[in-house]
């Protein structure tokens, strides 16, 4: 009985921060604030005979000894998780065998005895020469490791507060980061000099929302590398990179956007309201799809397999909403640690 009530309380207070699709596209991994990683099978969840049990994780393990996992990413062989501990890598094959073990891990360089910065965002940059991992987090810097030999190649310094999100530009040569200090910085990933460009959305009258704060929580690049979209305290807005000026804003009154992505000529974003917003690139709202979580932290579209092309949404609940037709929520997966 106590076990049950403990479990239900745990479920109630669960927040899923991030998710990631497997390289084969048939599974989705999600990580929560207890440091657990759960794997769900999309095939069984989408099958005609799906029932309650097919919406539960097929396997669940602890990805972080103590603390939450804030970001997940995947390469062809590895699932990489990062959060309040080290950056750890797990083999997908081990996970499928239900025996995952940390293959390698990287830790942020410590700046002091008591500092223990968390990692908020990691991105893998796959090049011919080498695969690199970029991570940004609580120590206000962006670190770049070479994944082959595990060496810390570069550190991009300049942010004055912690980094929320990073993404790549120009085929990995450049990197864009959004931070709590209200700036979006564009860096040359190979050199360790200062940021090439600094954008401050909170200072422009078009985007700034002083009542919400100046922090920029999410950033994304469009496919052609001409446009950058960012949001957070200031309004979600697209910026033209040649002129470094905002061009269009996406109105989300009362809600700061936590996550944004470009998808097939449209923009998808989610934030502090319980709905996923689909927009046209000019700023017009296309549709709003209600979700179970009242705040949204991550949205992902499974582009690996067409048959399993779903949009999944995670946020501050234990449910992962899955949409087959992006217009409405089809069903929810439930993150119940076994």
């Amino acid at each position, binding site marked *: 009985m106590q076990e049950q009530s403990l479990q239900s309380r745990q479920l109630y207070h669960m927040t899923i921060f991030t998710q990631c699709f497997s390289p084969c596209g048939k599974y989705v991994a999600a990580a929560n604030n207890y440091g657990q990683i759960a794997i769900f*099978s999309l*095939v*069984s969840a*989408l*099958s*005609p*005979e*799906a029932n309650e049990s097919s919406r539960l994780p*097929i*396997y669940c393990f602890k990805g972080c000894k103590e603390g939450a996992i804030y970001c997940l990413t995947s390469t062809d062989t590895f699932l990489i998780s990062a959060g309040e501990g080290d950056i750890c890598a797990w083999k997908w094959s081990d996970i*499928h*065998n*239900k025996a995952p073990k940390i293959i390698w891990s990287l830790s942020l360089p410590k700046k002091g005895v008591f500092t223990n910065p968390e990692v908020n965002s990691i991105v893998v940059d796959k090049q011919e020469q080498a695969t690199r991992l970029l991570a940004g987090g609580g120590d206000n810097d962006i670190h770049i490791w070479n994944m082959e030999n595990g060496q810390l190649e570069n550190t991009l310094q300049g942010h004055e507060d912690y980094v929320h999100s990073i993404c790549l530009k120009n085929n990995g040569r450049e990197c864009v980061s959004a931070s709590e200090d209200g700036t979006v910085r564009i860096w040359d990933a190979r050199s360790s000099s200062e940021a090439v460009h600094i954008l401050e959305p909170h200072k422009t009258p078009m985007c700034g929302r002083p009542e919400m704060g100046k922090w920029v929580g999410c950033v994304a690049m469009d496919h052609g590398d001409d446009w950058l979209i960012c949001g957070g305290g200031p309004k979600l807005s697209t910026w033209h990179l040649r002129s470094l000026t905002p061009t269009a804003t996406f109105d989300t009154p009362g809600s700061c956007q936590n996550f944004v992505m470009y998808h097939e000529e449209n923009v998808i974003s989610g934030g502090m309201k319980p709905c996923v917003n689909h927009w046209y690139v000019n700023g017009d709202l*296309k*549709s*709003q*799809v*209600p979700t179970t979580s009242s705040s949204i932290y991550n949205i992902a579209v499974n582009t690996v397999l*067409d*048959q*399993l*092309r*779903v949009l999944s949404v995670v946020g501050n609940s234990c449910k992962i909403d899955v949409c*087959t*037709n992006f*217009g*409405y*929520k*089809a*069903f929810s997966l439930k993150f119940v640690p076994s």
Partner: protein
Amino acid sequence: MSASMVLDFERTRTKFLNVIENGVKSGNIQECVTKIQEEDGGEGEKKLVTDQSLRDVIRKLVDSDAPCETFKLVIGCAVEGAIKDICTTTVPFLMLADMFDMLTLEKSEGVFSIVEDNVSVWKSASFYDAGKNFLLRMCNDLIRRLSKSQNTVFCGRIQLFLSRLFPLSERSALNLMSQFNSENVTVFNMQASESKFIIPSEVKVEKMEIEEGEMEEPPSTFPIDYNLYRRFWSLQEYFRKPTQCYDKVSWKTFSLHADEVLKAFDSCKLDDLKSQRKKLDKTKQMDTQTFFAKYLTSEKLLDLQLSDSNFRRYVLVQFLILFQYLNAQVKFKSASHVLTDEQSAWVKTATEKVTNLIKETPPDGEKFAESVEHILEREENWNNWKNEGCVSYVREKLTDDKEPVEKTRVRAKRKRVGDDLMTSAGKINMGSSELTRLWNINTDNMDACKADTRVFLPHLEEYFAEAIEQADPEAQIEDTYKLVNKDSYQWRSLRLLARRSPHFFTQLNPPGIPLNKYLDIMVNKIAQDMPSNSGEGEMDGEGEEDEKNELDEEEPEEKIPRRHQITDSSKTINTVKDDAPLTDVVTKENIAKIAGLIGDNWKILGKELRMQEEDLAYFESEGETAPLNMLTVWKENETRDSKLDVIKSALIKIGQSSIVDSVFISS
């Protein structure tokens, strides 16, 4: 002498056959008829023979594959014959029935035009009773032979013909029992095994539990939401048989599924492509007519169907029809088919949701929603009509035999519409119970129009009461809130003043005074009038209301002569108006003059000037100086502004206009 020779049936039959055929060939029906009539034999027997010959003719024509025209002629011949009474009235119908029984469907389609064209003939008194059953049976047989989806047009023609032939209340044409088309079953894949779109899985190295699907058909390119699919199509089962909804268990599933589907509709908004196109092209797009007889239920289509506005509309309208049925009172519903309160509440909220969704569905969602509502209302009316046993819609004619005579005699006096109605004892049947009730509230239109309840013009005091309150400086109401500053109030108050207030025509205005200021002045004047009116009203007691009304009614009358005066001479108006404030006060000399001239009538004048009874009695006791005293007292007490007008009007009223002329310089 015996009536007739024995008629040789066979011989006469062949004879008539030839006659008719010849007649048909030559196109001369009249000839056949006369020839047949000439033939010897009893009437009844001849009729039998003619009937038989006609049917023979038809048979021969069918055998010989004759063109449509010939059939037409023969039928025409039969009709003529029936009218001329050489054959029975049922024979044309029998011939038609024979014809359709023997002909192929293609030919029948061509030949059916004969039936359609002669609707008026079939409807005429002589043929109708005899033939309607035949025709009905014949048409039903035809329809049964036809397939609704293959020969839709022909089926339609037959149905149209039937609807023209029979009156509205023909029972056999009605769905009296309000039964539903239970044969319209929508088939869909309930079980997963029936689905052909299971995704294949890799059987290789994975050691986790994955089901092994069979690949029968290439898998779909996009994932399918089976949950929604099943729930969506299961709704069709409820639409097909709404009586299921009354059962508690099925109701639960129904409401659950319906909620989910409506939620999916709600979050998946449709793009209004048409209006976007309109903005770009600015050309009018013709609405393509879409119609499909049955739903296609393949899983692959669900996504596309969800984003199709026509499909959505169909389903949403189905919901509305179902909800209307559940709530409607139908005579043939069993007693257990009643919704509980909870269910009714759910139905209500669901109806609102559905109506909103319809309004949001482009293109022209609002218009569509209105039309649907209108249609459902009419459906309710039809339902009520059926419940009352299909009351005839034909309006009863007023039988007035004397009419034609009266028309010739009383040409000079124009007949009034109302007279007819009044002569028929006041109670008219208008054809519908509701209209009858309304009309019989007051059958005499003139009376009804004159009734007191129709006086809509408010009294000055009522209308301006609020404005008077606002005008009070102690109330400190801001200008923007004052009624007199509102356009609509201003306009209406001007109209009312023109009809009711004497001040309208006596108030001098510098031209160009803003309207709200003018109204302020008028409001003040009316306010001053008011207390004196109400005060005196109480004191006078009897006749107070009459006086008030009289005055009110008098003023418009009096204003008219004044108006004429004013319009006649504009110059004098100006001068009069300019002088008015100065001479508005009734001077002492005037009073003295009036007093002198009024003589014994001073009491009447006093009453007219609204003096109290007790005061008048007091003055009387004073004797000779009574008029002067009375008038002086009146002058002091008079609160109304234009004392001059008051005394003038009072004098004129009591018939002392001569005094007016002599005392006051009339303008």
